[in-house]
């Protein structure tokens, strides 16, 4: 079925394009959501990625890999490119969270995926991107450094800060939920 869709996309068949888009929409949007600060931004990244997919589908070789992995690579690269462009602009000052020590392990289990995603999206872009590449995509710090144009040390530092902020945010969320539950 996917092969037919890819073939249809090669012929610029709009129906095939829609079906392919719909087929991978959920999986790819979930990736974009992690890299973006909001759903609107995530959809922009998603559509930019699929635009590249449709325009370059003739380059895809089914013998070398599956279409999902190919689209996923394009989506990740588009998200990283966007981050790199954004990072050239001056960012707002990164205010630290004034939270207490975390209950990280408990909080992760206690929060929904949507709530955790919100916390990830609230991270500063530099921390969020490194966190996604390392913790979710499984890249090494060296690879992250090469992709983002930063040093290995900066990548490690950003990851540590991302974790710290996430733990604090998880902790405060956990505390709020616990109090609501007690009431």
């Amino acid at each position: 079925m996917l092969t037919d869709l890819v073939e249809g996309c090669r012929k610029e068949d709009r129906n095939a394009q829609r079906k392919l888009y719909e087929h991978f929409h959920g999986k790819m949007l979930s990736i974009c959501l992690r890299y973006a600060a909001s759903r609107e931004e995530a959809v922009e990244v998603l559509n930019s990625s699929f635009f590249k997919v449709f325009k370059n589908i003739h380059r895809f070789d089914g013998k070398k890999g599956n279409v999902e992995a190919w689209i996923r690579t394009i989506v990740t690269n588009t998200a990283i490119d966007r981050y790199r462009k954004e990072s050239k602009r001056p960012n707002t000052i990164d205010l630290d969270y004034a939270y207490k020590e975390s209950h990280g392990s408990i909080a992760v289990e206690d929060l929904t995926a949507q709530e955790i995603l919100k916390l990830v999206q609230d991270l500063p872009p530099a921390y969020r991107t490194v966190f996604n590449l390392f913790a979710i995509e499984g890249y090494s710090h060296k690879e992250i450094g090469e992709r983002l144009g930063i040093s290995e040390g900066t990548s490690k530092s950003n990851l540590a800060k991302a974790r710290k902020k996430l733990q604090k945010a998880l902790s405060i969320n956990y505390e709020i939920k616990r109090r609501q539950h007690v009431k």
Partner: protein
Amino acid sequence: MSNEDFFNRIKSKLSGMDPDFDPGDWKAMEAMLDRKKPIIPLWMIRVAAGLALFVLGYLSYSYFDNAEKPRQEAINSITQKTAIAEVGTSTKTKINPSLASAEKSSVATQESENLPQDAEATVEIRNLPMAGKQETPTSLTAKINFNSPRRKAVSGSFEPVLLISEKKHNPAFSAIADPETSLVANPATSIRLAKIESPILGAGEKQVHGANIPFEAMIPRTSKEQKSWWIGMTAIPGLQYVQNPEESFALGVVAGTAFPGLPLSLEAGILKDRFRYEEAPTARLYLGEKQRGSQGTLSGISIPLKAKLYFRSQSRIQPYVSTGLTAFIPVKEQYVFSFDINNPPNQSQALEALVVRDTLDFPNRSEQEINSTLTFDFNSSTGNITLPERKGMYLLASAGAGMNFQVNARLGFQMSANYSRTLGGMGIEQRNMKRIDLGMAMHYFIN
């Protein structure tokens, strides 16, 4: 809780996400796909820009070609008269040397009043063989240039370089500049045999044997945004021995040591009429990991082939087009040289990036009798220059165009634009490397 555990928990939570499909997302996608293509496609704009440049070049050519004619006619006139006078000087029976000298001197004086300074010098020198004891030329330069079958010259060039790169490691200069080092010098020696023709000035073929010792000093600076700047200077003092050529062939060897790199190359080329072919297998050092201290890694051999075609031109402007193909063959075993005893490099450190530096050459540099040369060279480099994969050989194709503009006998400019990108090779995947070089060089010849 360990990092790994923490991240795994978050990953497992997030991996279960599957956002619902929103038809509005597809509408936005469809709108993007339906977006009208620009009325004028990008390639047409590029072609138009190229044509505009060509027209501009042609107009400039016409202008200077016309401006050149009266000057050439004046020189031709003087040359003819000089030739007659020379015959008289050698035979002594048909023409009275003193009369010939007086006649020629008179013509030269008249003509030289209407000629630019460099042409005036030419007149004076051509008067020299039959000038007589009473007439002492004010300059020997032109005589050495045009009348002597064998002549020597001392040349030197100084090339301030300003290079801007998006990457902290700039591959073009990674052989000579370590971003962690404040100052890097790159002394190297070269011995070169070259033959250079002069299509602009039409002064005939010349062969140049030379020895140069280039010194390069680079001061790298890194901005907060991880962008790098290199400011440096290349000094190439040398000796050149010029003679009339017998064959259109050039061969040279460039070898030497560098800090922290070791450039080693063998150059060979053929120069025939307007066609210029260059071949230069080169082994170069490229830096490995960013690290305190100085370190170089012999990572491969690059073999560039380059051809240039100069358009016929009798004016001071000489346009050309060029194309090239460079093969880069990584060595399997990397040789790492460390200059920091306390912090030796890791043998497995990988090559950061590579771009073959495309230097500006100035084919007319040695065509005149030059005692020294001042060169100002500005290069900028942009594009994606990181090589994520480092396996096997790859090819770098390039195409460019430019023009030489000789304002007068001393002052010359060169402008060039070159685009290069990697091609797949030997069954390896294509490397995503692009490079644009824009160059402007100015030469000022000091007699």
